[in-house]
C-alpha cells in the first residue's frame, strides 16, 4: 500500500470523526430550533463568535465521548518498523481486518499519533472540567462569606488566597506533584480538605432555602449528605465500600494540585462581586425582611453574579487545560504511557526539528480546545451583557 496524500489523510480523518459530526449537527439543529426557550444558552446562538467557540468545544467533548469508535489503533500499541513514520504511511504488516494506515504518522516508539491524540482528549476532558467545578465550589463557599461579612474573616482568607497566588505555579507543581509527596500522604489530606467544600456548599444551599419546610429540607440535605459522604470516602480516602468512587493516587495528586491552584482565583472574583452586589437595594430589602445571611448570599447574590461566573468558568477550564498540559510537559504526575496532550508534546519534543508531527498533533489539539473555550467565553460575555 502507498503512503496517503494530505488530501486523502484529511478525508480519512474527517471520516473517522463521523460520529462527532453527526452529534454536532444534531446539537446545533436542536439548539437553533429552540434557542428562544433556552435562556443564556440559546442566546449563544445569536453570536457568531460564541457559536464557533461552542462548536470547537463540543467537537472535543464528542471526540472524548466517542473516542473508542474514532481511534484507528490501540493508542498504547507499538507497530514494528513504523518508528517516526510520516503521516499517512501504511502499516507494514497490518492484522487481518485492522485499519491499515497511520493517519498522522507514528511517534518515536512507533505508536499511532492520531489515536493517541483522540484518546488524549478523553484524559483532558475528564480532569479539566471536574477540577474547575471543584475549584469553583471551594472559591464560592469561601468567597461568599468573605465578601459578605468582611472583617477578620475576609482579611485572613484573602491573605491565604494571595499566598497561593504569589506562588509560581510551576514551582508549586514541582513541590506538590512528586512520588515522594504521595508517600507522605499529604495529597490525601489536601483532598480531605478540598473535597469537603462541595458537600458544605450543597448542604448550606438547601438548608438555607428549605429550613422553613423541614420535611423537604431533611430530604434534600439527607440526600446530599449520603451521596456526598459516600463519594467523599471513596475519592479522598479510597475507602468506598462499594468501590464505585475511587481515584488513582497519582491522578488524585494531579487533581488536587490543580484545584488548589485554581481556587484562590475564583475566591477573589466571587469576593469582589459579592462586595459589589451586597450594596444593592434588593439585598437591603432581603435583610429587612429578616432573611438569613446564607440565604441572601446563595439565593440572592449568587444568581445575580452568574454572568461573570459562567464566563470565568469557561476561561478557567481553558486555563486548567493549559495547567494539565504543563504538568504533562514536565512529566509530572501522569504515567509515562498516558496519551494526554502535555506528555505527548513532551515525548515529541526531543526530535522536534527532525520529525515534528508527534508533537504538533497534540499541540494543535490543545490549542484549538483552549481557543474554543476562550471564544465561547467571549460569546457568552457579549450575550450576557445584552441583558
Amino acid at each position: 500500500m502507498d503512503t496517503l496524500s494530505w488530501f486523502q489523510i484529511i478525508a480519512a480523518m474527517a471520516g473517522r470523526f463521523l460520529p462527532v459530526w453527526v452529534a454536532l449537527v444534531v446539537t446545533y439543529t436542536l439548539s437553533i430550533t429552540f434557542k428562544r426557550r433556552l435562556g443564556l444558552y440559546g442566546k449563544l446562538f445569536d453570536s457568531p463568535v460564541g457559536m464557533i467557540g461552542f462548536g470547537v468545544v463540543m467537537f472535543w467533548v464528542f471526540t472524548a465521548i466517542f473516542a473508542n469508535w474514532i481511534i484507528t489503533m490501540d493508542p498504547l500499541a507499538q507497530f514494528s518498523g513504523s518508528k517516526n513514520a510520516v503521516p499517512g504511511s501504511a502499516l507494514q504488516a497490518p492484522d487481518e481486518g485492522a485499519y491499515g494506515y497511520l493517519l498522522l504518522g507514528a511517534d518515536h516508539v512507533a505508536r499511532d499519533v492520531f489515536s493517541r491524540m483522540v484518546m488524549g482528549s478523553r484524559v483532558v476532558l475528564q480532569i479539566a472540567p471536574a477540577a474547575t467545578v471543584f475549584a469553583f465550589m471551594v472559591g464560592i463557599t469561601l468567597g461568599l462569606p468573605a465578601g459578605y461579612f468582611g472583617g477578620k474573616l475576609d482579611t485572613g482568607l484573602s491573605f491565604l488566597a494571595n499566598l497561593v497566588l504569589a506562588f509560581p505555579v510551576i514551582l508549586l507543581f514541582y513541590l506538590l506533584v512528586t512520588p515522594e509527596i504521595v508517600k507522605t500522604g499529604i495529597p490525601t489530606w489536601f483532598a480531605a480538605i478540598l473535597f469537603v467544600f462541595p458537600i458544605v456548599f450543597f448542604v448550606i444551599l438547601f438548608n438555607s432555602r428549605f429550613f422553613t419546610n423541614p420535611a423537604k429540607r431533611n430530604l434534600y440535605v439527607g440526600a446530599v449528605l449520603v451521596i456526598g459522604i459516600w463519594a467523599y470516602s471513596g475519592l479522598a480516602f479510597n475507602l468506598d465500600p462499594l468501590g464505585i468512587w475511587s481515584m488513582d493516587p497519582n491522578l488524585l495528586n494531579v487533581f488536587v494540585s490543580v484545584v488548589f491552584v485554581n481556587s484562590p482565583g475564583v475566591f477573589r472574583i466571587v469576593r469582589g462581586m459579592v462586595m459589589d452586589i451586597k450594596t444593592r437595594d434588593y439585598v437591603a430589602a432581603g435583610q429587612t425582611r429578616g432573611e438569613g445571611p446564607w440565604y441572601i448570599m446563595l439565593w440572592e447574590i449568587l444568581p445575580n453574579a452568574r454572568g461573570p461566573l459562567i464566563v470565568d468558568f469557561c476561561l478557567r477550564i481553558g486555563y486548567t487545560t493549559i495547567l494539565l498540559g504543563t504538568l504533562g510537559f514536565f512529566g509530572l504526575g501522569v504515567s509515562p504511557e498516558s496519551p494526554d496532550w502535555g506528555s505527548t508534546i513532551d515525548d515529541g519534543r526531543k526530535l522536534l526539528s527532525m520529525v515534528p508531527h508527534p508533537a504538533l498533533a497534540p499541540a494543535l489539539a490543545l490549542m484549538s480546545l483552549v481557543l474554543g473555550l476562550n471564544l465561547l467565553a467571549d460569546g457568552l460575555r457579549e450575550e450576557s451583557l445584552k441583558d
Partner: protein
Amino acid sequence: MLMFILRRLGVMMLTAFALTFIVFSLTNLQPNLEKLAKSEASVRMTDDQVVSWIANNGFDTPMISRYGQWLGVVPGWVKTMEDGEVRGRCIEKGADPAAAPVRCGLLQGDWGVSTVFKKPVSQILGRSLGQTGWLMLAVMLVMVPTALILGVLSGMREGSRTDRVLSTGAIITTATPEYVSGVIFIALFASATVGVSPLLVHLGLLGSPDALFGARKTLFMGTATSAMDHITFWNFALPVMTIALYGIGYIARMTRASMTEVMTAQYIRTARLKGVSFRQVVMKHALRNALIAPFTVIMLQFPWLLNGVVIVETLFNYKGFGWTLVQAATNNDIEMLLGCSVVAVFVVLVTQLISDVGYVFLNPRIRLA
C-alpha cells in the same frame, strides 16, 4: 502614602516568610531526605544507615528549628560524632570547629551547596539569573511596545475592522501556551524537513553562501544553547517570540479595554467637539490615562513570565534560571531548589509591590486625594 507602603511591606514580609517556610517544609519532607541520603552516601544503604545519615547531617531537629538555621537566625547545629569528630552546619569539612561562625544561613549570605552542580548555590544562581536576565530583557523589549501599540490601535475605534482583527489575534495568542507555540515555531522555522525553511532553500533564499538569509539550512535555530555565549538574532528569536507571544495577547486585551473606556469618557468628547483632531485626542488626552491599567497588568505578568521562562528554557535548552529550577527539582537538589524558590518568591512579591505602589502613584485621583 508612606503608611500605605509600610503596610504593604509588612504584609509582603509576612507572605515571604510563609512562602519560604512552605517551600522549606515541602522540600525537607522525610521521603526527600531519605532520597537525599541514598543519592549522597550510597544507594545500597539499609534503613538504619539512612536514619543515622539523616541524624549525622543535622536533619533530625524539628522543622521549625532547621528553617531558622537555614534563614540564619538560629545557631547552626553542632554534633560530636562517635569517633570524636565535630561536625556542624557551619563547619566546613576539615576546618577548625572553634573558628567556624555560629550562624550561617540566608542572612549571612550562605545559600548552601548544590548537590547536582557541586558548586555554591549563590554562584549558580548568579550565573543562571544573568542568562535569564538577557532573555527577560529581550522579551520585555519585544512584548511591551508591541502589546501597547496593538492594544491602543484596537481600542482607539471600538468595533472597527482593525479592532476585530487584532482582538481575534489576541484571543488566539492567549489560547496558546508556551509549550504549544514553541513547538509550532520550531516546526515552522527551525526544521530542515518541514515548515518554511525547505521552501526558502528551494527558492534559493536560504542554504547557500550568497542567499538572502545566509548559508544555514534553517531560518532559525531550534535550540538556544549557543545564545549563552553569544546572543544572535538567529539563536534567540524563537525563545523570545515564544515567551512574548502569550503576554502580547493578554496585555493588548487589557490595554484595549482600558483604551475603549477612556475613549467614551466625557472629556474626550469635549476635546473632539472643540475641534481637536482625532490624532491629537488620542496622543494627548487619551493615551496617558489609558496606560495606567496596563502598567499594573504588565507588572503582574512577571509571575506568569516566570512560568514561560521555565518552559521555554527547558524546550530550547537555554541554561538559565528556569532550566536550573527544573534540574534542581527533578534531582532532589534541596538547597538549590530552596535558592530558586527564594528568588522566585522575591520576584513575584516585589513586582506586586511595584504594581500596587505604581498604580497609586500613576493615578492622580488617588495620588492627590
